């Protein structure tokens, strides 16, 4: 039959899974007449190569896809026009109707029981009214007034749970859900906002706890029963969140960050756990100072590493700990654990001055002075720059803290649990020192002196043991030879 209107020739679907086809050859050219079902072109697809017949009689008005091109199924390949018509470009209005909605199709399906022929017809009248529903969910905002009470009173399971966990009165929360319902997001936002305003009370309560430890930290009561329940007396669970003290004139508050809370918890727990005692010793650092002066240039030039006093002390400590396994040990349950390695922790202040972390150098028993200096520098830098990995702060067996940089000459640090002791190193200070001259006579000399403290858990380490440890450590530092370590 001759066509009355333009007909598009589209890339046919050659099998259900085929999505595209390639034009291999046009059998007619633009302007040539063609009969219905006469072959117009050849195509090639994943499954078959075939000829495409003309869907009607007329003239090949336009060829839109050239030989060799691959196009998707349904793409218009050519236009057949009635003979003698002036041919324009294909219009978009000729495209298939807009998709019907599920509802329209459902109705059509329902009325389709008579037979397939009816289905096609049934869809036709449905289409005009079909496009209306697409903005489906929008009707909901229209109903807030009616649903308001409902929205306020209905709590979804998760909202009910979070509200009860945080003790929130949901009626005080602004709801943004259907009908003003309070959603999980609304509630979480409320809790979060409330946390920052209500966070005021807890810090106020916190100072009262830390007030006592200074006394507790002094080495007075080594006879405390080892099994004393650590936390019960000092921190009844109720105590922390209780009194919402008002801010007084001139006071300001800031939230406690996670690290601060962690430090607070650990310090309190350590004092509640270990029987802290501190012993101190003075060390003449003359030899170390001299050797360091020499090594400094060599290490800097050759390795870019500064041999700090701390690395000398650390090196000597590791060596000394070999003879004092308990000081490098821990109490685990009712057993004493010792080890053949020293994982050395170093207390490091964060760059912002608002926190402390103790990175650990593993297996320091295998490090010489250069290795120790390098490891300490490297891990301290990573600690300050917050680039530590979780593994870097675990597994310590002994800790050194070095507050001496500020000139302090003594302190009573808190043990990092579950270790047995912590070594404090202090400023190297030139002091008048009674020494012997070459004739064995007492003279007063100027010597660089460093104080060292060992704070130990008296449950495991007795005073005599600590004293011997400090003596040996001093001996190592004072007799440091040029070829040592």
């Amino acid at each position, binding site marked *: 039959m001759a066509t009355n209107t333009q007909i598009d020739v589209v890339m046919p*679907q050659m*099998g*259900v*899974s*085929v*999505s*595209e086809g390639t034009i291999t050859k046009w059998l007619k050219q633009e302007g040539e007449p063609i009969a219905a079902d006469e072959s117009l072109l050849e195509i090639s697809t*994943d*499954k078959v190569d075939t000829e495409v017949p003309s869907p009607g009689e007329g003239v090949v008005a336009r060829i839109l896809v050239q030989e060799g091109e691959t196009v998707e199924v349904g793409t218009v390949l050519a236009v057949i026009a009635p003979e003698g018509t002036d041919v324009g470009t294909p219009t978009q209005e000729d495209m*298939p*109707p807009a*998709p*019907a*909605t*599920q509802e*329209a*199709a*459902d109705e*059509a*399906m329902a009325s*389709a029981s008579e037979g*397939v022929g009816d*289905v*096609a017809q049934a*869809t036709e009248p449905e*289409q005009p009214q079909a496009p209306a529903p*697409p903005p*489906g*969910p929008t009707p*909901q*905002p229209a109903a807030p007034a009616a649903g308001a009470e409902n929205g306020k009173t209905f709590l*979804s*399971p*998760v*909202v*009910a*749970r979070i509200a009860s966990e945080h003790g929130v009165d949901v009626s005080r929360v602004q709801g943004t*859900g*259907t009908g003003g*319902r309070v*959603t*999980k*997001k609304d509630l979480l936002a409320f809790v979060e906002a409330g946390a920052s305003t209500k966070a005021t009370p807890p810090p106020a309560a916190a100072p009262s706890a830390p007030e006592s430890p200074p006394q507790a930290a002094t080495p007075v009561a080594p006879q405390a029963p080892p099994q004393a329940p650590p936390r019960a007396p000092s921190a009844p669970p109720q105590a922390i969140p209780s009194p919402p003290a008002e801010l007084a004139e001139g006071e300001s508050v800031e939230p406690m960050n996670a690290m601060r809370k962690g430090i607070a918890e650990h310090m309190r727990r350590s004092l509640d756990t270990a029987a802290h005692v501190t012993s101190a010793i003075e060390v003449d650092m003359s030899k170390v100072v001299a050797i360091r002066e020499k090594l400094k240039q060599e290490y800097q030039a050759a390795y870019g590493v500064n041999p700090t006093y701390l690395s000398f002390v650390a090196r000597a400590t590791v060596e000394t700990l070999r003879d004092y396994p308990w000081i490098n040990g821990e109490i685990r349950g009712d057993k004493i654990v010792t080890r053949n390695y020293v994982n050395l922790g170093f207390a490091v202040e964060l760059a912002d001055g608002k926190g402390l972390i103790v990175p650990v150098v593993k297996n320091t028993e295998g490090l010489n002075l250069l290795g120790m200096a390098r490891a300490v520098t490297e891990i301290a830098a990573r600690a300050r720059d917050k680039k530590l990995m979780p593994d870097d702060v675990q597994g310590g067996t002994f800790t050194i803290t070095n507050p001496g940089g500020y000139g302090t000459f003594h302190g009573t640090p808190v043990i990092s649990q579950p270790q047995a002791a912590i070594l404090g190193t202090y400023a190297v200070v030139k002091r008048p020192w009674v020494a012997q001259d070459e004739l064995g006579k007492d003279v007063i000399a100027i010597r660089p002196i460093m104080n060292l403290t060992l704070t130990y858990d008296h449950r495991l380490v007795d005073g005599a043991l600590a004293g011997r440890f400090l003596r040996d450590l001093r001996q190592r530092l004072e007799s440091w030879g040029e070829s040592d370590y």
Partner: protein
Amino acid sequence: MPEMTYLQAISDGLRGEMRRDDRVFVIGEDVGVYGGAFKVTLGFQEEFGPWRVIDSPLAETAIVGACTGAAMMGMRPVAEMQFADFVSCAWDHLVTVAAKQRFRAGTPVPIVVRLPSGGGFSGGPFHSQNPESSFAHIPGLKCVCPATPEDAKGLLISAIEDPNPVLFFEHKHLYRRIKGEVPEGRYTVPFGKARTHREGDDVSVITWGAMVYTAGEAAKQLETEDVSVEIIDLRTVIPWDREAVLASARKTSKVLVLHEDTRTGGFGAEIAATIAEEAFEDLDGPVKRLAAPDTPVPFSPVLEKAFIPQVDDVVAGLRELAAY
């Protein structure tokens, strides 16, 4: 990694297993000389011969029956149903014999039945169905529904390796439309492990097969409305990854279960019920299902479009849940 279509990935996995293991053979209608209705086994008969790539009569009962017997005798048959719809002819062999043999007599039945399924091309009621939920209900059968080429190959190899009957639902709409990188050589994708197709915070879509892409399009559209959608691709319906689904439900508190199969008794119902049971206190809205209506798949392109969940339907469903 080479890029392959979903179909090529299936071919590649099957060919690799046949080269590796003499027990693996293929049987089905036109799988041999013709290379299969969709050309999954094109060139297989030339390579493996007519005794390992068997053209069967048009009798699904015979195909699955033969596979079951061969499997009991130690073979690893891979059957092809020309269309998933035709598997109903083999229901008795699958459900009565293959699914129960191991429980009844202790005999493993390691068969794979490949099922080209799904619609979207006007295939009508006999060439478009997604019958996974019917078989998901039968203890003893596993149901696999890959969405990506990589998963299709890895899951097919797992299916062949599995000592139980496995129904492998290959979505026809994905065969040549979806391309992706597929690792060379042999690898497996485990059953019962969902894949997070997209991470999001506001609403979860639990789906599988071709609907993964429909959900993906919808999620992309909702980006502009500041709705963050998480998409979990189950990959296998039996066994299904309850932990992954529940974790996502707990995270977003709002869940849309989406499938191309019809609604009533569809597998989405099982998922929705499980979420309601296990994650009730984490829900901030109703668990919604979006599925095809309860009718046979229509021929008419317009009706079929209305029948199969479309991107717009998913967008509307998600928008509604997000606003709830």
